[in-house]
């Protein structure tokens, strides 16, 4: 029992760290333009494809050392996915800055359909995969059973932590971060003070996409398989994580991701695996009903 509980907690933390990375994209975009970026799950899906493509290309050049492979994959995937984030914002959201309230949401759903179908057409509908990159595991004996902590999971936890720390540094201590926070607090005032808010919004989309790309590489490493539809479910779950932590709050997104990941893993081991998605979605509905401001967020106040 203890062994299983600990094992599921470890699995949940790995999963949750990745949810947290994707949730950052939702929470930053929501914080800055007050819009749910439905296409964000698709950005993650694209990064999963990109990471598999990079791995295949690098492997065809005969590259075999893990650090070089993973470094190359991360750099390439994050760069290209960042461009995706920029293009999506430029094409589907920027022209709608002054439009009706529903317009960007519907446009985002359209964008998400476009991305899904475009990947399906160009890569085919079948499941894709990557080979296992890191083999081996730490084994801990606890009571009757044992807990297995694979090197892949250790790497994921470290990489996710480094990614979040880097982002926190950028947001808290750099000029770009200050501009982001100013724009989030008051877009009109920020632009009066000489901040190019349109550009800041673009940066936010790029940062969100880059975080999703990191998550994409890590999830692909962990599970090995994915398909063009993968972004939908993970997207909703990451959004749940963002809402759980308090939408608009960066530490909230990370905390929400970890809590959701652990809760989901424990639920699927203790209750039922088939209903683990139902559990996450029900959690989302319940949080939104009873505590829409989340754990670390501020309540929404409408200003006239």
């Amino acid at each position, binding site marked *: 029992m203890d062994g299983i509980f600990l094992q599921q907690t470890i699995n949940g933390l790995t999963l949750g760290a990745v949810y947290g990375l994707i949730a950052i994209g939702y929470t930053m975009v929501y914080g800055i333009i*007050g819009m*749910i970026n439905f296409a964000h799950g698709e950005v993650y899906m694209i990064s999963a*494809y*990109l990471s598999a*493509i990079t*791995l*295949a*290309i690098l*492997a*065809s050049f005969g590259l075999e050392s893990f650090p070089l492979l993973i470094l190359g994959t991360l750099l390439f995937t994050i760069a*290209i996915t960042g*461009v*995706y984030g920029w*293009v999506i914002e430029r094409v*589907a959201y920027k*022209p*709608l800055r*002054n*439009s*009706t*309230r*529903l*317009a960007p*949401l*519907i*446009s985002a*759903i*359209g*964008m998400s*359909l*476009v*991305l*899904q*179908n*475009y*990947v*399906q*057409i*160009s*890569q*085919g509908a079948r499941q894709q*995969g990557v*080979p296992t990159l890191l083999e081996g595991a730490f084994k801990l004996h606890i009571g009757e059973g044992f807990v297995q902590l694979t090197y892949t999971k250790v790497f994921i936890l470290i990489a996710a932590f480094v990614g979040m720390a880097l982002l926190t540094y950028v947001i808290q201590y750099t000029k770009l971060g200050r501009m982001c926070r100013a724009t989030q607090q008051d877009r009109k005032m920020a632009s009066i003070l000489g901040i190019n808010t349109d550009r800041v919004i673009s940066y936010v989309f790029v940062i969100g996409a880059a975080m999703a790309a990191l998550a994409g590489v890590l999830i692909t490493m962990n599970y090995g398989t994915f398909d063009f539809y993968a972004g939908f479910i993970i997207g*909703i779950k990451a959004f*749940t994580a963002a*809402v759980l932590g308090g939408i608009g709050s960066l530490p909230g997104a990370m905390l929400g991701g970890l809590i959701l990941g652990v809760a989901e893993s424990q639920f699927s081991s203790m209750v039922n695996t*088939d*209903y683990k*998605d*139902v559990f996450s*979605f*029900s959690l*989302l*509905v319940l949080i*939104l*009903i009873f505590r*829409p401001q989340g754990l670390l967020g501020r309540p*929404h106040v*409408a200003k*006239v």
Partner: protein
Amino acid sequence: MSSAIANNPMDIKKSLVDAVLAGLISLIVFGPIVGVVLDGYQYNLEIDRVAMIVGVVMLGRFALSLFLQTAKGMAMLASFESSDSGVHVLAPDYKSRLRWIIPMLIVIAMIFPIFASKYLLTVVILGLIYVLLGLGLNIVVGLAGLLDLGYVAFYAIGAYGLALGYEYLGLGFWTVLPLAALAAAMAGALLGFPVLRMHGDYLAIVTLGFGEIIRLVLNNWLEFTGGPNGMSVPSPSFMGLEFTRRAKDGGVPFHEFFGFSYNPSMKFIFIYLVLFLVVMLVLYIKHRLTRMPVGRAWEALREDEIACRAMGLNHVLVKLSAFMIGASTAGLAGVFFASYQGFVNPASFTFFESALILAIVVLGGMGSTVGVVLAAFMLTVAPELLRTFAEYRVLLFGILMVLMMIWRPRGLIRVSRSGVVPRKGVAP
């Protein structure tokens, strides 16, 4: 001012730079995904596809850039800024041409099944089912401004209501039809009541989650719903007369009772006629509702919630009524869909279905009835006719939704409202 702009020479160099930049970005974006196709842990290169896409993007950007420099393009760009102006008010004595067209259409629709082939009939039935769905969602999204992304859940409640009602309670088409509308409305109320108090965008996510929960439960509850294998649905009957060649349990089938020969498309003619009547009824109800205080309240709430609440409108009840009426319409559509297919399974109720219905509402025009009817037929019948493009169907829907939001967020057909002349002796 505008002539000065028109006389300006075209800046072709700027357009070229734009085109090259767009080409570079599309090369970065499309290059890896389109050009490197995964094949197991290997890959195949498809350079020609990338070259084609980049070429198309560059040409398109060049043409767009040139067009936007002309007077017409500038006028179009300026019209985007004011694209969210409100409804169009007609002159008080304006008489729509529709009052001739509608009776004609009704007559054509009533005699249509006599001549139509079975295939054509099924396509039109599907179109009408989407008209019903579109009308229902149009009340929720178009009139009340609540983005419901789990609309398909209510559709599933209707369809599974018929299948489960027959399986466990022995209910037929006619009993389930009102019950399904009621059950869907109840589900709408149950979901809507706690949710409608909160911020608008969250509603979209909650309904999306709700839609997925319903689908996952239908998919996983094997012993009750048959899981992914689905359930069979009984054929509808008319006054206890069945539309099969031979009736079950020694009954008399429809064609023997009325003394004509058996026709396999009779079931579809029956569904078509009932469906047509229901669509007409819903159209009429919706037409009346938009002129009633509750309809006005929906639209007012869509435009400015804070102002409405300040005027003393109970926003939860007003939203809830829209949500419930929309849900019950979807429930009705679900019953028709189930008996038309003769079979239901969870694969018919995915998120894509919700997105398709949303695309109908968006294309037709938020709040416009005629637009929704046209859009429903366009989006459901056109893919049937253009089977070769089936692969690109979703892609086209997505592009359509983005472009519509940029170009005409209020839909292709503007909502218009008849004007009122003040009575004599009343100050204007």
